[in-house]
């Protein structure tokens, strides 16, 4: 078991958490990784707290569910409050948006504040694109999957009507990630 990376995307049902997890996992498969993905199911996925978890590995994984997150994307305060303490201490990373989430004081895990809501509303004219903006920022700052693979995944799983919006959102997210990274 070498090189395992565990990502948890979380927020409200309806924010596109499950789709973002699907795209991230699909991109990992295109990159040749062993992926195990699971997400909220039933009523949770459609309104209240919702999560999607993706485990990346270079070899087949034994236990396929997330044990401790290496990366947390928190798209709502509620999700942040539940999951912020379950992120790996030394190397972990939390992506959030100050406009939506107030981080907890005293946590040592690295936090990256991304103005995702502002970018979605101002630049993309759609709040719905926030999930993909997060993905773009995540990919730019961690290189967890390649750009080619995530674009391919979007083309595969997103309907034609929303495809160009999602590709734009990906680019906007990557710009954000680059800025944060300097």
């Amino acid at each position, binding site marked *: 078991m070498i090189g395992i990376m565990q990502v948890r995307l979380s927020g409200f049902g309806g924010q596109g958490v499950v789709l973002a997890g699907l795209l991230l*996992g699909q991109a990992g498969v295109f990159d040749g990784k062993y992926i195990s*993905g699971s997400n909220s199911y039933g009523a949770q996925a459609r309104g209240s707290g919702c999560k999607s978890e993706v485990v990346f590995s270079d070899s087949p994984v034994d236990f396929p569910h997330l044990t401790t997150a290496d990366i947390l994307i928190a798209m709502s305060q509620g999700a942040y409050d539940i999951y912020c303490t379950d992120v790996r201490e030394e190397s972990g990373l939390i992506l959030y948006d100050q406009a939506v989430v107030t981080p907890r004081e005293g946590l040592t895990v690295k936090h990256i504040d991304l103005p995702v809501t502002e970018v979605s509303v101002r630049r993309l004219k759609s709040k719905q694109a926030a999930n993909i903006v997060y993905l773009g920022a995540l990919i730019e700052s961690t290189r967890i999957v390649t750009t080619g693979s995530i674009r391919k995944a979007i083309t595969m799983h997103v309907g034609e009507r929303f495809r160009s919006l999602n590709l734009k959102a990906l680019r906007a997210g990557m710009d954000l990630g680059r800025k944060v990274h300097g």
Partner: protein
Amino acid sequence: MPSRWAKSPFPKGRYYFSGNEAAAEGAIAAGCRFYSGYPITPSSELMERMAVRLRKVGGIFIQMEDEIASICAVLGASWAGAKAMTATSGPGFSLMQEGIGYAAFTETPCVIVDVQRAGPCTGQATKVGSGDILQARYGSHGDYQVIALSPWSSQEMYDLTLRAFNLSEQYRVPVMVMADEAVGHLRETIEVAPRIEVWDRKKEKGAAPFDIEGQDSVPPMPSFGEGERLSVTGSTHDGYGFRKTDDPEIQARLVGRINRKILDHKRSIIETESHFMEEAEIAVIAYGFTARTGLFVVNRLRKEGKNVGMLRLKTLWPFPDEAVAEAGRKVKKIMVPEMNLGQVAGEVKKYVPCDVISLSQTNGEVIGPEKILETLKKI
């Protein structure tokens, strides 16, 4: 026996499928061209995918009014010559038991995928459970055999559904894929091979469809419309399908044969997988999703130098008695974690002289690594 190598209908490669989607692809690859079902959480994605895929490959898909009708339509389709299946979860599986008994007695090939959820009854529709294991074996009345397989990954939802069809055709028996919610909804990398081995039912013009004289094996199976004289009945019947409900010899012969045709071949049906069993003192015996947790814990304890091993049951029925007995001879203690109140632990106890500890969990959650670790440490 008629097995052949066929080109996979799905292009060779790596895919990101949920277990339910992968099972549908495995069915299509095996040659399934008929699906009838009634949607039920957590199996519905399988049905949804079959609706799309069967249309593309020229098969037939019907949503029935309930699960009783669903299994009956599957059996009708099978006698019309199609490889046929349905999928369901616990409540639907209960309704299907009468049809499953009919399939076993009339030796009708069919595949049933049960994506188990937390029961009994309606229970927790969206939550995981594994409480249908004994029902798969004993759910219908009378003495009969079925084959039941237990997938632990998306890959095995593909592989074992494909195998379920092959076994079903080979032995003319209902085959159940006993999945669970966690495996059905788990999305994983799966690999599709370019060529697959496919079994088709045996045909022989004029031969008796319900007996082979002097042999405890599987008779050839004609379909309606092929010009054979064919009568299919759930009453006791002779080799040609004529009702013989007063004949003690025919009844004994038929019941004996439908059991022996499976039990005599159990060594080629049963599949198990051993992990670190060579020098193990304690063995975990697990199946389905729980075996993933089991392996995770065993891997971890092995790194700490503990003599723990795992036997995974890929086949649940016929029960892997020989593999379990062999494990029981090697180790001092056996622990069986499962998402029911010890259904397989009870079976294990029948075949081993050592202590068997049942780790049961029926709260609608998967058994996590800590729980198994904690129990093993106490042992």
